[in-house]
Structure formats: C-alpha cells, structure tokens
C-alpha cells in the first residue's frame, strides 16, 4: 500500500511535469508544445516567462552572441537580514537555482546580421531585481555600445529595485540612466524591450528611456504596485491597468510585438539607423 501510493504520487508528478498550465486562460498545454511555442500559450497568446539565455537564442544569430561582464555578481554589502534569513544566503540560493550570477546577462552579437549590444534580464534571479551588480552590468554594456558605437537593447523583466541593497540599489537607477544619457548624446540608438513584468525602479529608469519602447503582449508595466494604488485611491483598478496595451494607448509604448516576431522586428527597426 505504501509502495503503491508512492508510485501513484510519482506518476502524478511525472504527468504534471509534462503539462504546463497557462497563467492567463488556465489551459493545460503539453510542455513540449509550450516550449516549441516559445513559452507562449497557443490558446490565449499569454507570454510566459523565459530565461535570459533562451531569449538570447531567440534574438541573436546562432553562434554570434559573446557574453560580456559575466563575472559580476551581487555582494551583501549592508549585511541585510530579514525574516527569511540573510541576503547573502539568498544570493547563493538564487545562483544555484538559476545557474546565473546576476539578474541580467550582457553581451554583444548579431541580429539578422546587424551588430548590437544587449542586456537581458532574467526574472528567476531575485525577481529580476535591480541590484548593484545588475546596474553595473547594464552600465558596462551601455559603455561598450558607446565605445563601439553600435545600438544597445535592454530586455527588462523585473520587480524593481533590490531592497536588500537599500539606497545602493536605488542609485542603480541613476547609474544606468547615466549610461543611457551618454548614448543619447552620441545619437546611438537605445531600444527598450519591456517584458512581463517590468515594474518599480526599473520602469522608472532605463526601461522607459528607449528611443523605442517595445513590449511583449500583455506584459505588466508600471511604477507603483497595483495594491498600493488601490489602497491610495480607495477603488478597484481596471483589469487592463498597467498592461502593455494600456501603456500603448497612453502614449508610452511604440509597439507591441509578439515573441516570435521580435527578432525580425528588432532587425527591421535597427536597419533604419543611418549613421
């Protein structure tokens, strides 16, 4: 009985792991189909999360992406401890879980033959939060684009600033934007791709500063959290509040592009850079 029960549990888990449940329409999708469809729901077009390396593979021409600044990783400079333990331990756990050492991967490569520098955020690492190492990599990549005079693309996926680094985290907003300001001055294109979710300090810094702000469908993009706003104004917010579609309507997004069209779209708009 014990053995039998265990086998059933295992079988159940095995089956479960073969299916993915869409967070939007709740459909069950075969994992293979989900994956082949780039983690996008074939029924409702919900764009699920993907890892930074998966995104790099989707965007850059095969074998052209050279990772840069990979050795940068967070340190617990404030000795931050909360209810669930130390930031130091969290860093190690997140490194282990995700196999990467910061919430962003940076590098350069070619998109349909066009050279570009990219910073690709990964939500698995501390919720894509903007820490000192994250900011450093995003700035270093901007500086690389500045020196090489080639376009810079940041793919955001972030819950905002990294609380565990206090104001050091807040200052990453200024640090990354200082990099964007230099690109602006040199007329080097900066393209921001906002994916689900992009919120808080990331939205209020580089993610909103693209010459073009592009978004995946349905992505949540906002500054203040939905709950905070509802508490402040004392009413329920509309369902589409802070979605990419809502931001397009309100003038902050140039275009909403599906994941499968993103590579073509980026190379198309970059082809218009004429310097």
């Amino acid at each position, binding site marked *: 009985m014990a053995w039998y029960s265990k086998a059933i549990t295992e079988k159940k888990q095995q089956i479960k792991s073969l299916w993915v449940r869409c967070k939007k329409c709740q459909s069950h999708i075969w994992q293979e189909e989900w994956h082949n469809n780039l983690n996008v729901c074939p029924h409702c077009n919900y764009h699920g999360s993907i890892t930074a390396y998966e995104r790099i593979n989707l965007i850059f021409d095969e074998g052209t992406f050279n990772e840069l600044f990979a050795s940068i990783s967070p340190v617990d400079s404030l000795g931050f401890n909360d209810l669930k333990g130390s930031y130091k331990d969290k860093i190690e756990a997140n490194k282990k879980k995700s196999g990467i050492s910061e919430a962003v991967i940076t590098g350069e490569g070619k998109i349909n033959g066009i050279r570009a520098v990219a910073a690709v955020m990964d939500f698995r690492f501390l919720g894509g939060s903007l820490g000192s190492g994250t*900011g450093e990599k995003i700035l270093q990549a901007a500086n690389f684009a500045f020196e090489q005079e080639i376009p810079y693309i940041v793919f955001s996926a972030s819950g905002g600033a990294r609380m565990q680094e206090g104001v*050091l985290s807040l200052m990453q907003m200024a640090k990354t934007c200082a990099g964007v300001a230099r690109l602006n001055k040199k007329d080097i294109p900066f393209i921001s791709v906002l994916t689900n979710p992009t919120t808080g300090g990331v939205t209020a810094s580089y993610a909103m500063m693209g010459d073009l702000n592009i978004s995946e469908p349905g992505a949540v993009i906002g500054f203040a959290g939905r709950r905070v*706003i509802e508490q402040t104004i004392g009413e329920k917010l509309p369902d589409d509040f802070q979605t990419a579609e809502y931001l397009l309507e309100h003038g902050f997004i140039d275009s909403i592009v599906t994941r499968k069209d993103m590579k073509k779209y980026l190379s198309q708009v970059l082809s218009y850079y004429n310097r």
Partner: protein
Amino acid sequence: MAVASSLKVLTSDKSKHKLNGSTKGKQLSAWEIVKISRHPQRPVFQDYLHSVFTDFVELHGDRYYGDDKAIVGGFATIGGIKVMIIGHNKGKNTEQHVERNFGMAKPEGYRKALRLMKLAQRFNLPVVTIIDTPGAFPGLEAEERGQAESIAKNITEMAALEVPVISLVIGEGGSGGALGIGVGDKIIMLSNAIYSVISPEGCASILWRDAKFAPDAAQALNLTAERLLHHEVIDEIIKEPGEGAHTDYEKIADAVKKSLVKNLKTLSAIPVDILLDKRFQKYSAMGKFAGF
C-alpha cells in the same frame, strides 16, 4: 502601503512624536531618526526658501498638463549667488499638506522640475534641489500620465545637465520620487534626514510580512545620513541642532546656507566638461558588487 503609513505620521499634527527621552549625546536608532525626519514641526522646503534664500521668483507649470504644487521651483539667490531652486514642498499644516499632496509629486511635477532645470541650463544657473517626499504619488492618473517615464527622464537628463547640481535631503528621501530630482554633483543630507529605496513600513510589509517591523526594516535598510555617507552614496552631512532641525530653525538655516554656498562656489569653479565627467564617474561608482 508604504506611503499610507508615512502619511499617517505626517498628518497627525497633534500626535506627540515624543522620542524616548532626550536624544542629546545618545546614538539614535534608525527608527528614531525616521520619526524625526517626519516630525510635524520639522522645517520644510518653504521654510528654507524664506530663511536661506532671497528674491524668490516662483515659476509654474510643466507646459504639458498642469502645475503640480507638490514640487515648487523658481529663481532665487543665496549668499549673493543666483540659482534655480526646485524642491518638494509638503506644506506646514493639514490644509497645505492636502494642497501639496504631502510632497508626493505627479508626472507634471517632475516635468515642471525638468523644464526649470533646462531653463537653468539656458540661463547658466546652478541648480539646487531640495528633497522631502514620502515618494512619488501612487495614483491611477499619475500612472496613466507616465509617473515612471517622468522620473526616468529626469534622472537621465540630470545626468547630462550642463550646470552644477546640488541635491539636499532635508526630511524624507523617498525612493524614485526623491531621485527624480536628486541626481546631483553633490548629495547632502541633514543629519536626521533619511533616504531610502522603500519606506521602512513598505519594506517590513514585504519582507517581514507586517508593517510593525518597520523599525527592523529601517535598521536593515541603512537609510540614515551616517550610514549613507559610510556607503559613499552621499557626500556631506549637515549636523542638526539640539534634538533635531525642528528645535532651532535659525541654526539649521545657517548651517544649510553655509553648506550650500560653500558647495556652490566649489562646483561653479569646475569647467562644465569636467563637471559632467565627474558626475558620470560619481554615479558609475555607485554600489558594491563582486567580480570584474
């Protein structure tokens, strides 16, 4: 929730805010400093405007949508030096708090600030920003009109502004709402001011699952002037008199004036290309990380 909590403190004019005994000569806890920074009698921007500056000419409007009273700005003179002054204004009583939305600016506030900074650049005037806000206003309309975009743009443009910029935190430096006018060549704090990525209440609610752990969060966040100087986020601390700035308006005004004049003179002597390079290096160096 972060903002809501800090508002409660700010609006309760009648509450005592008594600190546990005299603070003189004693090391204050981070939470005690948070409370002083929000003290209802603490001098606000409009106090310094009168005690430290002369000849103030207020300039209104963002030229897009409105005139946000949570941020006030205009021409002013300090120790004979002409500047553009821009700051959060919380107001001094309940009526003013409401009129000025407790110093919580909307996009039109940040856009007014940026317009005045660009005007300062044209007129070749240094910019002084005075920071005192629980944060940017978290409202539906503010989001709709681009709260994030307006702050992002200010931060980006301030990094490249071709005149000296001094940012002084006089009370609460609340997250992006503070940084939206805070990218200075010098960042100065009053000794009981705070500057934080999130309010202690907000942080406690998220990481401790209960706002009542705000004192722990305050400690952990390293939000005091002293800690921030240690972490090289800020450049200077102005020592407050007695039990805090609210106990001696004249003395704090003198100290603020002395510091601003000294820093304005130092920065104005630097050629603009070097100034901009230094500013870029300053913000490039912010934060600590491993590797590289």
